[in-house]
């Protein structure tokens, strides 16, 4: 039997829309993942603490406010400061394509925008686990 894969789905920042995050959580549950959903309005500190304590295989960050160029690098910086380098970090929500390279640069492995099939995300996670 394959080992269970644990994921955190988090909403950094101040946007109040988590329908997408909930759909993704539910879909990935149905794909056999254990999904920890941490709710709205998370600071980078909150998210990094959740990662430390829950020890997931991947962190999925959903953001629709446009604050991703600030918040996502900050989260990556704090993960690094805590010597957490063996988890897969993904972005989702409303993130313009021209911002992808800069996010990839700081370690956000891939970004999935509106219209992505959940199967695609599930396959990507399974293929790119770091441990």
């Amino acid at each position, binding site marked *: 039997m394959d*080992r*269970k894969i*644990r994921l955190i789905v988090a909403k950094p920042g101040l946007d109040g829309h988590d329908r997408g995050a909930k759909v993704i*959580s*539910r879909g*990935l*549950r*149905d*794909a*056999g*993942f*254990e*999904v*920890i*959903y*941490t*709710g709205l309005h*998370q*600071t980078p*500190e*909150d998210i990094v*603490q*959740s990662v*430390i*304590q*829950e*020890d997931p295989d991947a962190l999925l960050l959903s953001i629709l406010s446009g604050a991703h160029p600030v918040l996502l690098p900050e989260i990556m910086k704090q993960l690094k400061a*805590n*010597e*957490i380098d063996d988890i897969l970090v993904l972005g989702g929500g409303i993130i313009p394509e021209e911002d992808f390279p800069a996010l990839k640069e700081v370690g956000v492995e891939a970004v999935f925008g509106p219209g992505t099939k959940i199967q695609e995300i599930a396959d990507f996670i399974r293929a790119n686990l770091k441990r």
Partner: protein
Amino acid sequence: MTTEIQSKNTQIQKYVDLLKNPEKGPKKKRALARLITFIENGGPEAAKEIIPQLYPLTGKAHIIGITGAPGSGKSTLTSEISNHYLEQGLTVSVIAVDPTSPFTGGAILGDRIRMKKNFTNPNFFIRSMANRGQLGGLAMATKDVIHIIDAYGSDIIIVETVGVGQSEIDIFKSAHTTLVITPPGLGDEIQAIKAGLMEITDIFVVNKMDRDGADKRVAELETMLDFGENIQIENDYSQAKVVRCDGWRPPVIKTNGLTGENVPILLENIHRHFIFLEETGFKKKRLQFRYKHYIIEILKYFLVKNVEEIVFSNEKINEFIEKLLAYEQGSDPYTISEAILEVFLNRYFS
């Protein structure tokens, strides 16, 4: 493969050493989290590398079990209770167990949402666990995880289980104090006198006290407790599945998890129960009982593993199987299993 196991054991060792270090901080927290993952994924095989090293550091935490129907407010109340202990300067850890889907094996673990207030408090630790299909609501690994958190140095450990309801005896076996949350509007007196969950409760919590029917719920529970005290029946409890605490009438406490109303009263009662356990010697009795079951579970695992290995690798088993195929008196699967068991136990226990 062997190098894989070796590297895993080196990793385990690194985290065990970090956990043994009395100095707290994010590194120690991460070590705790990593060890929990090893146990979740590796089961007793991983636990036997970890628990023996940490066991001498355990036995200090007050373990509180919280159970009740889905939506009764377990997580919200757990968060409130944690706040109070944190304000007292204590270290608090929460194990929040949620159900695994029987269809896909996946799970949504959503208890953290209710505990946002303390996410970044250095004295607070929350771990969400999927029950991975274990009946009774407590994930199999939970007992081991409780021990690791105890060794980490948590004053209070709160185990919040899946709210499946009446068969939640498991939690009682792991906790010092078991709280059952029962909001108004769920069931009548007959529910209250049913066996199981209601019998193992140390403290009843009627949460959502602002709702209609809270006082009625309290009255129903008190009536049930009166029944219990007035009916005296001679019974042999030596074979009971739990340790009964004579002399403790479970208090029934109304709370509001959202506003925190009456939570200090609940805490007083949790403390009073802990003192009761210590003064009456029930704490030790319950511990003896708990460890008996812990040992049985571990033995079951390793015995099954051994039995399978021995049976399948042993040539002699074929002689037994041949006998079975004769369809004669004394050659049935039960008689033969008994014969094998005798050989097996003689080899290992005499």
